[in-house]
């Protein structure tokens, strides 16, 4: 225990000593609740803090893109195409004479939003299906988990490319394609957590008191699933960003003229650009790397912070 509670010990002379001591103990427990302990651990995690700062900067740049981007990211200037970095264009221009810096800033929008929205979407699917499978077991569990097994055998990138090809490229369809292929892993995670939580005494107590299943799942079981799910979601965002980059690199993701880090990397398919024009592929490549690395650091930090078995 930390030293903090000792400062709040009630004076011996207090007339209502017993009550006061209890209140102080409760207060002390509140002060060092699992939440605050996790927060403290998280904010002490230096790499997580680094990742968080980078993500905040990237997120701010994405939100404030119209204010900070020097040029319209879609504006072409076919006279100044593939110009190296200069005072006019800090990161040079691309094959259509568009400002690479402006596209890099605007490119953060689809890249980050695909990650966040797709992951939110499939984690929700996972919570619903995982809860049903884990809580009810039996046939429900069998059907859901066999479906999970089948979907997990699909080569995800190929199926996602196939789905995008059918649905058509674009931000929305990229999100849908990622979401409907990536829900299986968190579903297993949720189910596993629920299988152990549903046998807990407090769940039995709630059940014996006549609480409805939906209430038991919502109020007593799901809170215990949130922590591992959040950690999984963070890593999922990183994976989704990479998937979006891969799809856009193949011209199957974000549609032109919108910029995404992935479709900016498309230029790197030509040897001459790889060798002689690094400003066309290095900035989006670094942005993807930094974003994914930062998200993974944050994920590591959350995992360490939420691990109740871990020593302070």
């Amino acid at each position, binding site marked *: 225990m930390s030293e903090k509670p000792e400062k709040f010990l009630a004076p011996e002379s207090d007339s209502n000593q017993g009550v006061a001591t209890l209140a102080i103990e409760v207060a002390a427990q509140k002060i060092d609740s699992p939440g605050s302990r996790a927060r403290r651990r998280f904010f002490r995690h230096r*790499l997580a803090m680094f990742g968080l700062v980078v993500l905040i900067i990237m997120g701010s740049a994405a939100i404030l893109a119209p204010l900070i981007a020097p040029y319209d990211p879609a504006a*072409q200037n*076919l006279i100044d*195409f593939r110009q190296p970095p200069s005072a006019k264009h800090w990161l040079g221009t691309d*094959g*259509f004479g568009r400002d690479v810096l402006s596209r890099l800033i605007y490119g953060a929008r689809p890249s980050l939003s695909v990650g966040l929205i797709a992951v939110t979407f499939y984690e929700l699917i996972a919570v619903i299906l995982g809860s049903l499978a884990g809580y009810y077991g039996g046939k429900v569990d069998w059907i859901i988990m066999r479906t999970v097994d089948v979907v997990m055998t699909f080569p995800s990138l190929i199926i996602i490319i196939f789905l995008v090809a059918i649905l058509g490229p674009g931000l929305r369809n990229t999100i849908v394609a990622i979401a409907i292929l990536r829900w299986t892993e968190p579903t297993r995670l949720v189910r596993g957590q629920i299988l152990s939580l549903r046998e807990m005494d407090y769940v039995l107590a709630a059940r014996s008191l006549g609480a409805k299943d939906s209430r038991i799942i919502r109020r007593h079981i799901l809170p215990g699933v949130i922590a591992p799910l959040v950690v999984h979601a963070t890593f999922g965002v990183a994976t989704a960003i990479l998937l979006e980059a891969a799809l856009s690199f*193949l011209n199957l993701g974000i549609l032109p*003229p919108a910029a995404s880090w992935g479709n900016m990397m498309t230029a790197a398919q030509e040897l001459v650009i790889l060798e002689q024009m690094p400003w066309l592929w290095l900035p989006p490549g670094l942005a993807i790397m930094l974003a994914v690395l930062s998200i993974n650091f944050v994920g590591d930090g959350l995992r360490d912070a939420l691990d109740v078995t871990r020593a302070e």
Partner: protein
Amino acid sequence: MRMKSKSIAFFGLALIAILVACTAEPEVIIQEVEVTRVVTETVVEEGETIEVTRVVTETEVVEVEVTAAPEEEPMAAEPPSEPQMGGDVRVWLPNGWPEQSWPHRSNWESGWAISPMAETLFWPLADGLEPRLALGYEVSEDGLVYTLNLREGVVWHDGESFTAEDVVYSIELRNSADLRPLNGLRQGTTIQGMVDFHDGNADSIEGIEIIDDYTIQFTLDSPDAGLARLFFAAEMLEILPQHVVSTLDEEEVLNGTSDYWFTNPIGTGPYKFVQYEPDQFIEYERFDDYWGGAPMPDRLFMEISTAEVAIVKLQRGELHLVNPIQATEVQRLQEDGSLEVLIAENSAQWYGMEMNYFTNDGLWQNPKAKQAFLYSIDRQAYVDSILQGQGVVRHSFFDGTVYACPTMTEYNYDPEKAAELWAEIGVVPEEVTIDMMSWLGLNARRDYLPIAQEFLRAQGFKVNVDFIDNSLITDYVQGNGPRGQDWDFHVLLFGPGADPGGILPFITEDSGANWGYRSWPEAPNPETGVKDNAVRYTSPELAALIEQARVETDPQARIEIYQQIDCIWNEELPAFMTASPSFLAARSNMLQGTDWQTNAGLGFWLRMYRPGDLWVWDGS
């Protein structure tokens, strides 16, 4: 945290290692060098210390660091004027060898793969026909009888003689009604009985008669000015050895599943087939009994790889020829002294915008809308940027050829004129969405769309661009793609090709052609019940002129008719022209025998040179 620190340290070290690996590493070489030293020794002699100085010369083995590659010695000589014997020729084979069965072949790449061993009757040139297995032909006065004279003394790679039987057998097999999949009957439809034979209503082609071993007579239903160029010199009519193919399993031959085509095929060409290593290479060896004289090199390898790998291999001297190359590679490769970039202006093909098959009414049936579209886009800027100047803006179907309209309107970039035209036909750009599609593969084709999109957006249109995978082309254009039937254009490589009568008849629905010039749409036109052209353009006037040109055998009169046709095209714009990309390739200085301009007017970018003409200079 300790694990995290270790991870970071590891990551940092890996990054440093990569950076170090990317920098030029000094090379250490061991050399024997002669070293001269001044040696001073102290000698004690008879109790007296004496200093003796002497000069010593000795050989020592030392390590020397070389930080830059030693400069290559300049070439000692120009290549000799006479071809040199021996050596191996290595050329790049783009996209591999997808179709091995000769009668089933439908793509150019596979034709190029077999071109060292297979031969056609003629080789088309921009201004005539070069005799190959046929020496020439005579035409009757009424233009209805063609007598084809074949080359005597030609032998197959197994030593058997080539005869007229082989030619007729090849024509019949290629057009057989039993072939699966069936080949479309595109040329030779005027030969008597050809359509019946193709439809399975006859056992032989009535209008083809073997006169003797080296003479064949073709009788036509009606004159056909394009017959020689489009049928006799057809790029896909490789002549088959009847004495071999007729002994194979018939079902396998008809279905294209016989192993023969990639295990031991024979032809009459300058090279004999040796082996095919799937996705790696095709190996050929010199055929000493070739009718045109044996080729110089011992072997010819056609190597399969991606374009990027091919360029690297070319620069390392492991390939002699890479055809084609991207326009963006030209400048860089021109700076490489060991290579030559081959450039030929192309008047046979252009990138264009083909309309959606289902758009048979509405805005894009109005020629002024199409003209406004062209005025809206700075196509010269596209040529200068995406094509790196290696192309020419085109304004009509035959632009750049002798068949071009003499009074052609040039649709150069003029946004004000475009706005006037849009207003004149009542188009409010802000209310119109234009959907355009390109499939992937050629960057120059793909990259036209973002440019067109930006210029049209500047006019006020909302523009969507779809890039789709090659495997989905047919579905998309048939209206089964994500936009259904509601899209406007797709980009394609288009143009007159080897002869003006090749593609043009199938542009207009009234020309009498009852099948699509492309493979889609497969479904027949719901109104006419026939498979017709993709753009669904209707012009009785154009159809009448096309028919007139088809039967006109006088070359000058034919040119004049096609010029009239081109003037109609120039105004009506059934499809929108963009620009003709130049034919670009790169060869090693060691490779000789490429005459890059010869076939520039044909549109066969893979047939810009003859495999049998290539030879390798050994540098001496």
